[in-house]
């Protein structure tokens, strides 16, 4: 049965007709990385803009009228109300249409959907975030949620690897975290053609050599291309992580986001309802997962 109690009930707007997007304005487009722009949006209904709540790791269905709808992770932290940020990669019909819009243009948004990260389980414990490439997008909300509620977590560690500094999402913002004393931020690039990169130049798994991790007291959230999973999961298991302390965010085709259209099935579960955050234990028990 559907976890009725888990579904946010404060947004009556989205309950009457779960398919109906509410209109939002693009308030800023930040050209972060080529074809990976950060869109800041704000619901035109100011009450909705202020009351919209989500959990880190949830996603929204973003509509561009005439082009269609696509599931996009909410990249901004729920701890910052008023606007929503989406880090969108330009890949096809809907995302292309979004890139053609300007500041002040309208899009539709409905959500939030999905389970989000099991924050309740991580409270008081260590949080390790491991992102590769574009995998930073779904992890950013969790990072800021933890930093904004710093006292609720023990250690907070981020490891993020990109090909080059120019490919690093949220680069300025993350570089400014490196000096923070209450968090460990390990940024690395595979190569630095510019010669100006001050962070690590190494493959992502090498970052494990720079920190002490207590597997029994840590949850690891991992997101990135398949090669990241391959090496990072191996490393986490070697360190002694229990399989349900490793969290990952999945992408599947989605047409409804609410468990109706059937497209996001992975094995016997729906990514939109039971995911997109799955534990590694789920992953090895679900066919079609990896």
């Amino acid at each position, binding site marked *: 049965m559907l976890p009725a109690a888990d579904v946010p009930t404060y947004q009556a707007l989205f309950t009457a007709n779960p398919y109906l997007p509410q*209109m939002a304005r693009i308030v800023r487009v930040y050209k972060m990385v080529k074809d990976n722009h950060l869109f800041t949006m704000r619901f035109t209904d100011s009450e909705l803009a202020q009351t919209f709540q989500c959990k880190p790791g949830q996603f929204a269905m973003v509509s561009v009228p005439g082009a269609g709808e696509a599931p996009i992770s909410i990249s901004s932290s729920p701890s910052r109300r008023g606007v929503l940020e989406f880090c969108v990669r330009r890949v096809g019909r809907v995302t292309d249409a979004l890139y053609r819009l300007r500041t002040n243009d309208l899009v539709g948004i409905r959500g939030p959907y999905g389970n989000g990260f099991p924050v309740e389980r991580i409270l008081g414990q260590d949080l390790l975030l491991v992102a590769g490439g574009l995998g930073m997008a779904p992890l950013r909300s969790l990072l800021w949620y933890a930093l904004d509620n710093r006292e609720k977590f023990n250690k907070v560690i981020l490891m993020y690897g990109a090909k080059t500094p120019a490919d690093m999402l949220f680069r300025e913002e993350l570089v400014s975290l490196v000096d923070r004393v209450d968090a460990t931020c390990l940024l690395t690039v595979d190569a630095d053609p510019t010669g100006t990169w001050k962070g690590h130049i190494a493959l992502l798994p090498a970052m494990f050599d720079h920190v002490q991790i207590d597997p029994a007291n840590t949850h690891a959230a991992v997101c990135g291309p398949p090669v990241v999973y391959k090496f990072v999961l191996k490393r986490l298991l070697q360190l002694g992580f229990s399989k349900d302390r490793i969290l990952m965010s999945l992408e599947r085709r989605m047409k409804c986001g609410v468990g*109706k259209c*059937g497209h996001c099935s992975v094995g016997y579960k729906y990514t939109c309802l039971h995911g997109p955050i799955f534990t590694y234990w789920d992953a090895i028990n679900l066919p*079609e997962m990896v």
Partner: protein
Amino acid sequence: MKILKLPKNKLDFFASVVQQFGEVHAPVEQNGQFAFQPVRRWSEVRLDYNRTILPPKKYFLPPRETLLQYAGDAGYVPVMEGLDKKIVLFGVHACDVYGLNLLDLVFAGAYRDPYYQARRRNAAIIGIECTPDEHCFCRSMRADFVEQGFDLFLFDIGDYYFTLVGTALGDDMVLATGPLFEPVSHQDVEEYKRRSARKREAFRLHVEIRDLPEIFEMEYSSDIWQGLGERCLSCGSCSMVCPTCYCYEVADEVQLGSREGPRARTWDSCLFATHALVAGGENFRKTRPSRVKFRFYHKQRGFVAEYGRPGCVGCGRCIVACPVKIDVVEVLNQLRSVQNVASR
């Protein structure tokens, strides 16, 4: 439960009375097959039909429907016209009532589908008992009899229809006929039981569904899927005719040079190559074997995990519709058979 009987020779009168509850749709013959259609003359209605081409699903989740309309700065607006049209589906078999009960589970839940729900609210269902043919296995799927999901349910007991009154609306229909329905006698009940037992004996196909979800996990890499995948044409017919297949696509339909248009949903099938395709070309079910397997797996394993029962009612439609004769009963029984276990 209120139980009455309706004289068979008054059925057409009853049907005419029922019209006041909505446009009556019933099975009529179409080139040797049957289809639910609006009834023009009661004489063309074929209550002795075996199965309709499409299940009653088409009334609640139409093959194509506009969900929203987008119009420039006004954004998206729900299109709800016509959803309140009252219809009466006359002569629905138990398996199809059960199929609707299953769809109800999908389109309810935390995110209720207002389109489906509205249509469902406005449709009355009059069920009718049937005789299994060579493709029916509804009894195995526990769908040969339904306790709910109908307003009235008619069972042939000779000169009368033994009638279960399922809802207050059903009761209103009975009352609207005046004194047409009669109380049942002890003999009628005996006759009902005799016929019910006879129907049970009439099934020629059987599938054991206990521990079937687990067997699907055990046989996930069975050779069966390869063989089926090589035969399957990915035509999607099995999904279109299935009372419990509900996958749909959604698209904004663009009118050239206009900033307005409909967002519509259309039936989709997990057999289509695009079903699990995502941007960038990655496809989680690239091969036909993986897609054929998924359809069976979802009904017998995924649906059970989500809703506590299989997502198949044993109506046999997919068996009849498949151009290469892929037969769900054969597949399930083959999966269960012992020889197959070693065949990986």
